């Protein structure tokens, strides 16, 4: 038995215990089962990290999963630097959010079910990041999607919640459609779907083209883009982003864990894991960079005008995931994973703070009905404020380091679209700071705008919730310190201060960057200014003259409506995909093909043979005659055949 198997299988055990015995036996103690399991996973993960730091990596098969002809794949585990980072992120966030949930979900009638799903999710996510082959990756991939479906639709009696869960699953299936085909193309090309042989052989075949549905395409580009389909589904990038904002129907700890810190970053993980494939295809890289950049500005603009506290953070997640895609697209995989890692802390923290606010506001989500909460909930206020500083890229905090690295590598890297995506990234940095502090100021500052009853109810959340907030704050502040740019490191006297980049080097390589120190300083300055500018503008609008945003919304009503309605993408899909499909199903397939054409023909043939169908509806007598008639016809044919032979 290998020690690392404990990492995924402890949560699986917890899931089984809770789902099978939760209702009758475990009940209110369900959180103990799940928390102990995930904490155990965390300890083993840390132990694994220590081993990997010593250079001990693992690539082993457990047992043969599927074997058919030359297709062979095992359940197997790969533990390298990239896996380890993901293990730490997943188990850390998961443990803290489990603890937070004890307070948040207290008294819910599905308490055991909630913790069972959380454990199942943790198991699937860990299987995803630990896989050593594409099929197991796909298992984890769909598994986390399933848990997401369960947890989004956790309050399943609400139509909106069950709608959102279903939507998430189906939209993801669109992405997985490409992902699955990608795995198949990989198998048919290499005869295996294990990472290691695929990544070592890809260089040899990358220049080849393959005929795909009649088009001659570059092999590496085809594989990369098919896998990319899966990535944009899971990481909610354009055009498959529509499910993530709706996913906020789930309980807030779920939004924090699954729809911010871990699962949605699986797409980024996939890009990084398959970097040997992506790096060989410039078109695929450009697509990734552009999709990331477009998603990030698209989501950031929507977030500017929304009033639902969770949806703002959800759009912020979309936008930040876009940043990570952008990073991978310009070849800065390390920076993408670094941002994934820092983002997990400050975004989980933002969500949990939002949950804490909702807890105090009895489920209220509308920013316009909040205000002045800082005096009632100082811990939530302070932690959320720090998280917002971090996401805004204020120097010294985690978000600053990862965001700065991405922007610098986009600008100075070899990507043909690098400068363009850098410009977008910088604008997004400004917008991010603005909407993050709009949220802070509207929620915590000014006067309370809700009802008196709500105001009376305002309180700080219990310890089980605030302690995880404080612990995550440490991450939101300090997690970036392992990746201080060497430029800054020299100033403060630390050599090779970008330790993270060095650690990931064996897996993700070293990104290229060509630029002078002066340029690097300048870019750093610009992105810091963008962040501070955003915060400043938000302060002017929402602390100073509250009339300005109202005026702007009136003056630019057209743009405001577009943003408020999220660019009408949901409506677009509804009118171009969902409704036409249903219409065809109802009116063409059921109405015409099945009911008219086929029925007519198949009922018509017997009628021609022996007038059968007139009896069809009403009688069971005559059956023998039909039998006889048909038998006779058959005999006739046989006879004819024998005679004419």
């Amino acid at each position, binding site marked *: 038995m290998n020690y690392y198997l404990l990492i995924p299988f402890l949560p699986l055990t917890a899931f089984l215990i809770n789902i099978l015995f939760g209702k009758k036996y475990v009940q209110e103690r369900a959180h103990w089962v799940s928390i102990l399991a995930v904490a155990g996973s965390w300890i083993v993960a840390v132990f694994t990290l220590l081993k990997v730091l010593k250079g001990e990596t693992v690539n082993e098969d457990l047992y043969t999963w*599927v074997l*058919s002809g030359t297709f062979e794949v095992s359940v197997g585990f790969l533990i390298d630097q990239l896996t380890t980072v993901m293990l730490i992120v997943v188990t850390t966030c998961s443990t803290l959010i489990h603890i937070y949930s004890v307070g948040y979900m207290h008294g819910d009638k599905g308490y055991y079910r909630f913790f069972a799903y959380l454990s199942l999710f943790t198991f699937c996510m860990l299987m995803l990041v630990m896989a050593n082959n594409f099929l197991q990756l796909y298992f984890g991939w769909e598994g986390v999607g399933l848990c997401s479906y369960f947890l989004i639709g956790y309050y399943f009696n609400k139509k909106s919640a069950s709608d959102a869960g279903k939507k998430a699953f189906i939209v993801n299936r669109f992405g997985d459609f490409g992902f699955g085909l990608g795995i198949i193309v990989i198998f048919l090309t290499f005869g295996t779907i294990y990472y290691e042989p695929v990544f070592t052989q890809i260089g040899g075949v990358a220049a080849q083209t393959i005929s795909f549905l009649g088009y001659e395409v570059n092999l590496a580009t085809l594989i990369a883009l098919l896998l990319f389909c899966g990535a944009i589904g899971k990481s909610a990038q354009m055009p498959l982003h529509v499910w993530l904002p709706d996913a906020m129907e789930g309980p807030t700890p779920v939004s924090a864990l699954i729809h911010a810190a871990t699962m949605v970053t699986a797409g980024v993980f996939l890009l990084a894991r398959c970097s040997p494939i992506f790096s060989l295809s410039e078109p695929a890289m450009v697509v990734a960079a552009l999709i990331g950049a477009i998603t990030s500005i698209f989501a950031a603009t929507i977030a500017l005008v929304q009033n639902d506290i969770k949806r703002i953070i959800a759009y912020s997640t979309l936008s930040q995931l876009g940043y990570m895609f952008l990073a991978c697209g310009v070849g800065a995989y390390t920076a993408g994973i670094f941002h994934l890692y820092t983002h997990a802390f400050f975004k989980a923290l933002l969500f949990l703070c939002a949950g804490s606010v909702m807890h105090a506001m009895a489920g209220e989500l509308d920013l316009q009905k909040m205000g002045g909460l800082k005096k009632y909930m100082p811990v939530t206020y302070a932690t959320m404020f720090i998280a917002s500083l971090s996401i805004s890229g204020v120097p010294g905090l985690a978000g600053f380091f990862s965001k700065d690295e991405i922007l610098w590598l986009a600008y100075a890297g070899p990507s043909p679209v690098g400068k363009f995506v850098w410009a977008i990234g910088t604008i997004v940095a400004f917008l991010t700071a603005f909407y993050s502090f709009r949220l802070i100021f509207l929620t915590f500052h000014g006067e309370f705008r809700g009802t008196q009853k709500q105001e009376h109810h305002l309180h700080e959340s219990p310890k089980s919730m605030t302690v995880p907030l404080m612990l995550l704050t440490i991450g939101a502040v300090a997690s970036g310190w392992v990746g201080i740019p060497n430029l800054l490191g020299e100033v403060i006297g630390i050599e090779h201060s970008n330790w993270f980049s060095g650690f990931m080097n064996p897996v993700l390589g070293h990104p290229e960057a060509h630029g002078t120190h002066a340029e690097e300083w300048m870019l750093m300055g610009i992105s810091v200014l963008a962040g501070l500018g955003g915060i400043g503008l938000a302060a002017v609008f929402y602390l100073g003259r509250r009339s300005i945003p109202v005026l702007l919304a009136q003056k630019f009503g057209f743009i405001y409506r577009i943003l408020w309605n999220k660019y009408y993408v949901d409506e677009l899909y509804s009118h171009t995909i969902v409704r036409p*499909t249903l219409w065809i*199903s109802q009116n063409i397939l*059921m109405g015409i093909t099945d009911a008219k054409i086929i029925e007519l023909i*198949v009922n018509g043939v*017997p009628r021609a043979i022996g007038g059968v169908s007139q009896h069809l509806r009403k*009688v*069971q007598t005559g059956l023998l005659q039909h039998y006889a008639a048909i038998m006779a016809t*058959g005999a006739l044919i046989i006879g004819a055949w024998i005679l004419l032979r």
Partner: protein
Amino acid sequence: MEHITNNLGYPILSTLIFLPIAGAVLLLFIRRSNGTLIKWISFIVSVITFILSMPLFTHFDKSTYTMQFVEKHAWIPSWNVMYYVGLDGISVLFVLLSTLVTILCVLISWEAIREKTKEFYISILIMEGAMIGVFCALDFMLFYLFWEAMLIPMYLLIGVWGGPKRIYAAVKFFLFTLVGSVLMLVGIVVLYFYAGKTFNILELMSMTYPYTMQVWLFWAFFAAFAVKVPMFPVHTWLPDAHTEAPTAGSVILAAVLIKMGAYGFLRFSLPLFPEASKAMTPAMLVLSVVAIVYGAVICLMQTDLKRLIAYSSVSHMGFVTLGIFTLNTQGVEGGILQMINHGIVTGALFLSIGIIYERTHTRKIADYGGVATVMPVYAAAFMVFTLASIGLPATNGFIGEFLIILGGFAARQWAGVLAATGIIIGAGYMLWLYQRVFFMEVNPKVAELSDINGREFLALIPMIILIFWIGVYPTPFLGFMHETVSHLLERVNTGSGMEIEMAKQIIESIK
């Protein structure tokens, strides 16, 4: 010519075929009023049959493609008809599926069937014997006898214990399958004369037939098998039959009966007419892909629970026929596994629908809503079946569908790509169904329902175990097929073998 060759030392297949029939005969002598005894006898007979079928699972030699557990006796010497039965890697799992499903059908009908109980259980047991017979038969006459014998109990199940439109559905079912079967009979007779008066299937398989004859016979057999599968466009009997049939009828229909068409393709069409099968591949792939997409899209707008699952069967069986006609290892093995999977999952779905229908007496989806609140255990079981149906990894559906799409893509790229769209739509209609029945506010019509009882739970639990077993560790099941499938494909691809074929395709596509 009388001999038995199996490593068990007793005629296990005959036992399995005739024990249920003997049980049915026994029931004839039970007083009609003694319903409890009738049920218990049926239950015990089906359980014993299942237990007796276990050696097939444990003692099957996976290292050979030859027929096993063979029994061969002269039967009608003047026509050279033999009682000849045996199993290979294609058929063995279906016998096991049949014996399992029969138990569940008896269990699920315990309370539901209150009229003509005796006749009902007699039908079920005769059905079981005939089904096992079809999968075991190695003599064409014997095969045809069992094949037709199956029709009668099924016709009765639908026509006597079915819903309001049962007569229409039963007659439609009967006529469709009959017309197809008659054409197959013609084909069998032609083969008989051509091969020098033998019905021995293995002997017939060892011969080669002129290409034109192969094509004609391929289509004659196609008529029988396509109706049974059912393939597009002869699928319209299935929704009617399923909707009107009693639960046990639907379960047998879904789990075993419609597998026989696909089984026929594998057992007869491919090895008997290899060149024709190969030549007809494009047509078969097109029909399969149409069935997958057509069946799935039409599911979206169904308002009747059973009708929806029936149409989903059309889609899923499209996967099966697609897999078979890829003529490569992954496709065919995936296809066989998917037949088993579909039997388990769709059988389980019909069992589940039967459970709730017994409580509400409505099949309209709109009459449900919020069932998960009132029947949580039932909802959980149904969720497992839903997930298996949409091919979630770690359930059996995934393994089968993935192998089929892989094989399909290798055979013809468009086939794999279009088949994969079926998985998206599949998630759409199944999750929507689940939402409308189990989620959202509790519909007052279902507010008082009680959760499943022990007997119903017992009927569902084997299916749940199998779903995860095959999903997580399919090796014991796929293991049955390897030798037989590779032998079959060798014959179809005349020595070229799938691997070489695929390698060629790859080289061609890469070049």
